[in-house]
């Protein structure tokens, strides 16, 4: 490739938006061409400047309040502002759920950052276990072996289900540390895919779906326990798993 064919693609190369073969050709050219290399670095610098210094305009607080009011009035013009907030919440829940699909977890306002943090930890624990091939400390497809194994390691007893008949055989379990506490990690399999299910007692509610780095996360609460399932399975399959587990 020569400079005239490389130059228009430098930005896309920086954004990682080219086909791998093209990306490779560009980096090869950059190695040998000072002028294109400089152009690339300038764009990189520009990108860094924008991301670190350009204003990210966060929504002002009063706007959220006005939005709630106007959507409430939209729904029912006769409704007065004195309407209890739960009514609006019920109306909005379906909208929010829809908007949240595939994007963010539907979370209580208070729990956003905490749950985002947990999602991040769940993701990294799962990926780390996959990469180091250290998925289980107790290997067993028998829940009557796995459940007691946690006995002296945790201050709670996780619900271990046998879903082999439904196509999700149990592989085993291990103990992880998430959200500043030890949690049970149960490992299941679906054909070649591995599912990690993290569970621990939790009072705050969590419910939703999130996709990140090619993984899907499904979270739910049941009987005072939080459940976070993560896998590179299709979202449909993971949601099936979650439903079978009672989510």
């Amino acid at each position, binding site marked *: 490739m020569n400079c005239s064919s490389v130059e228009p693609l430098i930005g896309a190369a920086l*954004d990682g938006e080219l086909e791998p073969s093209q990306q490779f050709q560009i980096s090869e050219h950059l190695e040998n061409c000072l002028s294109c290399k400089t152009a690339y670095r300038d764009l990189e610098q520009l990108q860094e400047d924008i991301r670190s210094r350009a204003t990210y305009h966060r*929504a002002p607080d009063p706007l*959220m309040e006005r939005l709630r009011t106007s959507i409430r009035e939209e729904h029912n013009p006769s409704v007065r502002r004195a309407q209890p907030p739960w009514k609006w919440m019920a109306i909005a829940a379906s909208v929010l759920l829809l908007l949240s699909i595939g*994007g963010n977890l539907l979370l209580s306002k208070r729990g956003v950052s905490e749950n985002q943090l947990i999602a991040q930890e769940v993701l990294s624990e799962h990926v780390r276990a996959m990469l180091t091939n250290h998925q289980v400390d107790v290997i067993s497809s028998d829940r009557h072996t796995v459940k007691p194994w946690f006995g002296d390691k945790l201050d709670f007893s996780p619900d271990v289900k046998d879903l082999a008949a439904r196509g999700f055989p149990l592989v085993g379990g291990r103990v992880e540390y998430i959200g500043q506490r030890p949690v049970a990690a149960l490992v299941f399999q679906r054909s070649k895919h591995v599912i990690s299910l993290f569970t621990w007692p939790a009072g705050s509610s969590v419910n939703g779906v999130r996709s990140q780095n090619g993984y899907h996360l499904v979270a739910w609460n049941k009987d005072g326990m939080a459940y976070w399932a993560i896998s590179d399975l299709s979202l449909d399959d993971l949601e099936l798993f979650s439903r079978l587990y009672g989510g």
Partner: protein
Amino acid sequence: MVPHLDAAYNLARWLTRRADEADEVVQEAYLRAFRYFESFTGSDGRVWLMAIVRNCCLSSYRRRKSDEVPFDERSHGVESGQSTPENQLLKRASARSLHDCIEALPLEYRETLVMRELEEFSYKRIAEVTALPIGTVMSRLSRARKRLQDCMAAKGEKQ
């Protein structure tokens, strides 16, 4: 909570360049989203919402009959692909100049840049929001960056 509110507001604020107008646009967008959410069949709520915000911005822009010169892709083209020594030397930019230069971009370039750099959307997502081909997204982004570099260089933002 209201999902994606910051993303919606950020886009509206950069596109309208005015706080009061951004407020109005975002309210209108969420009302529309609320009214038509049954028609939403995609899988990415954020893209869907951003498309609505963008449409509301464009309508507002037209209503306001801005005194800006209408956008003409040709006249905003980059004449020569060659970088000048000035923009090659673009370094650590002051936030003020950066802000002014982004605001000075034509709307079509500004929205592409904001979605790419501040929301870190992929080209595909930007293409979905704007209903443009990915190639157009790529070329608009490239021109936006070129203009930004030129603008920063003109403000003496270089070492």
